[in-house]
């Protein structure tokens, strides 16, 4: 598969890893946050951490839209779907995310709510056209990648005069979240989370470009390397970060130059700007309220805004108190720090959203990496015996 296989060459990865080991300073600990779940997934799926020297540590960021969706908004979506007149269209990823009191879209569907899994906003439009008597709501979530498709669907709905189509908008903005992390007490003051550099988003950056990161690199003096989601992309980005640190640089570099332009995709940006505007503030699970952290439909498209159309109130989020998702999303904890990980909480019986999405830190570690603890336990046992 062109542009895939060549970036999955394990031997090259090992060679780069060796190079990283050679270049890291033994006295320095390198902490890099991969913002994106796509990178988290690649790191776990390909076991990249095994290749890295001990003093290079990856911190999983909040870059998974499923994981950062506050429970209150999921609860609101479930309540919306339960209305008899409503058909809720959603990407499959959200079906199993636990809401309050053990609810989920999957269970609501089983109990009778009309919930349809779609692959694309085009499918939701098609449903609205085919079933004019239903109120078809698209449960829009995602970063800058999924927002332009939502905008295009809205444009098409307006052109086709589809009065029964609306959008429950949960699109969030990456740069605002990175800003919040860097400015957070844990990172900025307390130092409980050390972040020496960022691996910047791959596909988000195809839309927004690399320019939005310049400000952070500058203001917070942290290097940022935008990288593709294939394992070689990630490991090369780590090498690039190590080199910037070693050289005392903190600029934005673009490893994913084959798809990302500095200015991003202007056409997509224009589509988004036409229909959406920034919210003053929006709750990200784990990060709390993020200023300018999300989008909403512009006033003139209120008719298509499910929040207004159905007078949705977002219940206060009642996070499961035993679930450490919040801390994990901030990089304060790792999945294995959670008492529920692998016992009460598994992908079959997820207690938190990080265990659902395959980009969630908990799910990625469970699905691909959990043998490592046991392998380590074994080594420890052996050395003790």
């Amino acid at each position: 598969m062109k542009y895939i296989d060549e970036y999955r060459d394990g031997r090259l990865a090992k060679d780069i890893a060796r190079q990283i080991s050679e270049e890291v300073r033994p006295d320095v600990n390198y902490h890099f946050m991969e913002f994106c779940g796509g990178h988290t997934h690649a790191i776990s799926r390909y076991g990249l951490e095994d290749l890295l020297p001990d003093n290079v540590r990856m911190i999983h960021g909040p870059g998974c839209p499923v994981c950062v969706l506050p429970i209150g908004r999921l609860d609101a979506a479930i309540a919306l779907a339960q209305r008899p007149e409503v058909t809720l269209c959603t990407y499959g990823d959200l079906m199993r995310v636990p809401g309050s009191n053990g609810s989920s879209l999957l269970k609501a569907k089983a109990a009778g709510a009309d919930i349809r899994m779609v692959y694309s906003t085009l499918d939701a439009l098609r449903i609205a056209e085919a079933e004019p008597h239903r109120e078809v709501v698209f449960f829009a979530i995602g970063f800058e990648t999924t927002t332009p498709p939502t905008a295009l669907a809205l444009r098409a709905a307006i052109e086709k005069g589809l009065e029964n189509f609306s959008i429950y908008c949960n699109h969030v903005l990456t740069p605002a979240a990175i800003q919040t992390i860097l400015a957070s007490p844990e990172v900025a003051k307390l130092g409980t989370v050390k972040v020496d550099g960022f691996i910047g988003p791959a596909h988000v950056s195809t839309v927004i470009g690399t320019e939005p990161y310049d400000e952070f690199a500058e203001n917070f003096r942290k290097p940022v390397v935008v990288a593709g989601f294939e394992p070689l992309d990630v490991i090369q980005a780590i090498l690039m970060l190590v080199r910037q640190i070693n050289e005392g640089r903190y600029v934005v570099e673009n490893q994913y130059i084959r798809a990302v332009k500095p200015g991003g995709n202007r056409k997509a940006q224009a589509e988004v700007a036409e229909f959406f505007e920034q919210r003053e503030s929006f709750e990200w699970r784990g990060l709390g309220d993020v200023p300018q952290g999300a989008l909403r439909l512009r006033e003139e498209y209120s008719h298509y805004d499910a929040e207004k159309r159905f007078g949705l109130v977002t219940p206060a989020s009642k996070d499961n108190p035993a679930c450490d998702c919040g801390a994990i999303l901030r990089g304060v904890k790792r999945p294995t720090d959670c008492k529920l990980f692998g016992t009460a909480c598994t992908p079959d019986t997820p207690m938190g959203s990080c265990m659902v999405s395959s980009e969630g830190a908990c799910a990625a570690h469970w699905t691909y990496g959990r043998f490592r603890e046991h392998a380590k336990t074994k080594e420890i046992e052996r050395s003790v015996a």
Partner: protein
Amino acid sequence: MNIAVVKPTRRKLDLRNGRVDLSHGAGGRAMGQLIEDIFHTAFDNDWLRAGNDQSAFTVPAGRMVMTTDGYVVSPLFFPGGNIGSLAVHGTINDVAMSGAKPLYLSASFIIEEGFPLADLAKIADTMGAASREAGVPIITGDTKVVERGKADGVFISTAGVGILPEGIDMRSNAARSGDCVIVSGSIGDHGVAVMSKRENLEFDTDILSDSAALHTLTAAMVAVGGTSIRLMRDPTRGGIAATLNEIAHQSSVGFRIDEEKIPLKPEVAAACEFLGLDPLNVANEGKLVAVVAPEAADAVLAAMLAHPLGQEAALIGHVVEDPHCFVQMETSFGGGRIVDWLSGEQLPRIC
């Protein structure tokens, strides 16, 4: 060496409020748990617990029979049983009607998303009890879940195998002029019990479905009747009217039956008046019709009357020569009439 094995906590199925969802059919752990917690618990045997895709058993050399039926009854629960008891009894009976001894059953479940786990457990428990009572274990099974609106609660297909006693070889074309027709008990109970709970028809009656496994009855009959029993049939869909017409055409004979001799509960007769139905067209699930050579009829009937499931057995008529294969009945009014297959679905008549 003492490696700590951390295993996922097995969360119990919520048998009170839970519902079947699509993950219960996807081949993962959720499905495994559904099967274990509900079906293995209810059917309770080592074949299933072994968790193979098939189950093994030992047979002597000889002739076997195999049968299958799908169960789609609505409503799923009705006075005297539910779809689970039907799925066990019905398939045991189709084995038994050949004169064979039923040995094992398989069960394939097709479940609609959203089906209450409590109802599924109740159905499975009923099946388990029916299979244990009959001594015919369910040794292998399958579970599929389909989206809401793509099934009707739950469908069950069971298959059954059994062994034939040496020399027994009943066939649907074996009825001959002069043979006797015996029915094992009152007709129409099952159909009326089910219809009494059907939406829009609801009526109250004490009638229970006659759903029962008839293999001990057939064994008793075969023991005295042997090869003099030409054939046996359980008059399910279409009632004894359909069964007699099928046999008539398969054997190229006619029947003369006597309405007054056919066991019929007054409530069933009354319910049929309400619905404009003929009890001869109404389904049974614990009755059989046997065609028996005249010389053995008395002995077979006596054996049936001595069996708990044949206490109301009756000789209701005879096989006659008839190139038209008519099933004719002398009515209690005194006239003659034809007893025909029902055309179309069994629906309450207005006319």
